[in-house]
């Protein structure tokens, strides 16, 4: 059983943190992972930066740009993650856009993920049909979960199709939005979350986009297996001592 399945089987209210690899400094990738695990994160999503991140808001755009300007790329990231599993035990996913993966080579990418102990991927602009036709076999061969997104506009039939195609968790966007928008749980959002809950999907769900504090996190957890925090965390570590800013940030969610 892979680490993602194990986590969902054993725990509720899962807190997953997204951060951009190589940000604020190129060498910070592993240190942030270790600090997050130490301060109670349940799962990590490490973003590999792309020059044209269309699904991202200003904060993650800026972190991606800085990381790229400082020389981050997939090859370097896999080198940094070489000893990941000597110090990090929680599930780790890589998140990014499809073009860098294509240029790295899908086969090479999957192999490198498996070698360093990455458990899954989130590639928002990789369509389901392409995944099924060209990627799925390779992902499964390397025991990688591929996580798909759904939004309030995703049709039920499509949700079931996604549920059938994935084997980690489903990423519920609180609304159709670029990253960094604040979550406002109004009646329509609640109705959407409840609707998804009642579909009894085989995969667990995580709510993401716009979770920024304990209150929004708890709210999200009442509808799903947990929640993902990205922009708020990236903002919190943009300067100062990594270990301190990580533990400071995580305290808010662990009280």
């Amino acid at each position, binding site marked *: 059983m892979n680490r993602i399945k194990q986590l969902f089987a054993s725990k509720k209210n899962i807190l997953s943190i997204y951060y951009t690899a190589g940000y604020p400094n190129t060498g910070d990738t592993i240190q942030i992972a270790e600090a997050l695990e130490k301060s109670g994160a349940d799962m990590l999503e490490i973003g590999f930066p*792309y*020059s*044209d*991140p*269309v*699904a991202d*808001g200003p904060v993650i*755009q800026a972190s991606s*740009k800085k990381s*790229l300007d400082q020389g981050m*790329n*997939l*090859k370097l990231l896999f080198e940094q993650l070489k000893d990941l599993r000597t110090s990090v035990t929680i599930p780790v996913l890589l998140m990014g*856009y*499809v*073009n*860098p*993966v*294509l*240029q*790295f080579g899908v086969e090479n990418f999957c192999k490198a993920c498996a070698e360093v102990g990455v458990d899954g991927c989130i590639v*928002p*602009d*990789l*369509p389901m*049909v*392409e995944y099924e036709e060209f990627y799925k076999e390779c992902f499964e061969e390397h025991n990688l979960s591929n996580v*798909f*997104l*759904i*939004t309030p*506009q*995703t*049709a039920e039939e*499509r949700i079931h199709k996604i549920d059938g195609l994935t084997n980690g968790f489903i990423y519920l*966007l609180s609304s*159709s*939005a*670029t990253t960094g*928008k604040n979550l406002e749980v109004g009646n329509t959002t609640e109705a959407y979350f409840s609707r998804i809950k009642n579909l009894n999907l085989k995969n667990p769900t995580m709510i993401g986009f716009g979770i920024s504090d304990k209150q929004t996190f708890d709210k999200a957890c009442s509808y799903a297996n947990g929640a993902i925090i990205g922009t708020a965390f990236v903002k919190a570590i943009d300067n100062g001592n990594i270990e301190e800013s990580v533990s400071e940030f995580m305290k808010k969610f662990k009280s």
Partner: protein
Amino acid sequence: MKYKVNEKGYYGDFGGAYIPEMLYPNVEELRQNYLRIIDDAGFQKEFHQLMKDYVGRPSPLYLANRLSERYGANIFLKREDLNHTGAHKINNTIGQILLAEKLGKKRIIAETGAGQHGVATATVCALRNLECVIYMGEVDIERQAPNVARMKMLGAKVVPASSGSKTLKDATNEAMRDWINNPVDTHYIIGSVVGPHPYPDMVAIFQSIISEETKKQLMAQTGSDQPDYVLACVGGGSNAMGMFYHFMDDENVKLIAVEAAGKGVSSGFSAATTYLGKEGVLHGSRSILMQTPDGQVVEPHSVSAGLDYPGIGPQHAHLFKTGRGKYVSITDEESLDAGLLLTQLEGIIPAIESAHALAYLEKMEFKGGENVVVCLSGRGDKDLDTYIKYFKL
């Protein structure tokens, strides 16, 4: 039909719809409906009526005598510069606004480089009373100021894109982000044959009126609807695709697509995509794009804002890869010189984009008497500042 899109949304190895889930419902709605709506008799009637009475079509096919004399071939100019708003872009925006109405959309967004597509979009929004937001790179806002003023006067909101190279690619990113954040009532009028399927096909269909007319006009003027050469400039590739469309299956007609070499293909300041690019994914489709070995998109450069784009539409990538089209490039200076030449020989000031296609005539060798059609995609009013500075007029 071998160069057209297949049922999966691909042209050979290129195309598809590489979009995040947030865009899926909108793109899928388009995919399921675009052919049905476009083929509808009522839609066709309204589209052609507007093309005639509002845009001023058919645009003339003009045999440019002094240019012909210079090159020793019959040079025909397809006068898209005479369209209302001054470029071919209006063919597509009229088509898409009618389609957006049929889909019940209330708000229109678009990206623009030279500002021609932004103006053409703002124009049809004024015409049909729809809200209009245009994304434009900060650099382009500066170098195409007259078009920014026109868009504002037409009632559009012009939003500066300040990321990346602050040009067309970045404006496109911002428009896509807007669409993600407004998933229900908004239609995105993409301005070229780029983007996820069905955009490249849909835009090509609307622009295909260029070659449809050209064939009839050639038949009337030369007794044959088959020229020897057809030339057009390529940014994303919409005027070129419109110009090539009805000639693609006439294998004896040579198709020449002219990209922007900028300061030279090896200068590091270029937009010659097929020369510098590799296969990859940008703005929702698999095509050819300028990128680093790690798949980061490279910032392009061209004096012409409309060609300052690091990719080309997937159908162009297919024409390039199969060898059906010949893809060449022209530098900033060569294009400006060609623009001045046309002005002085024929009394027509071309857009710098279109001047790239004209400049390639200098590099061709003619036996004499060949029929050559050049798509004069737009007029040069927007570029006067650049011309004046360059020639110190």
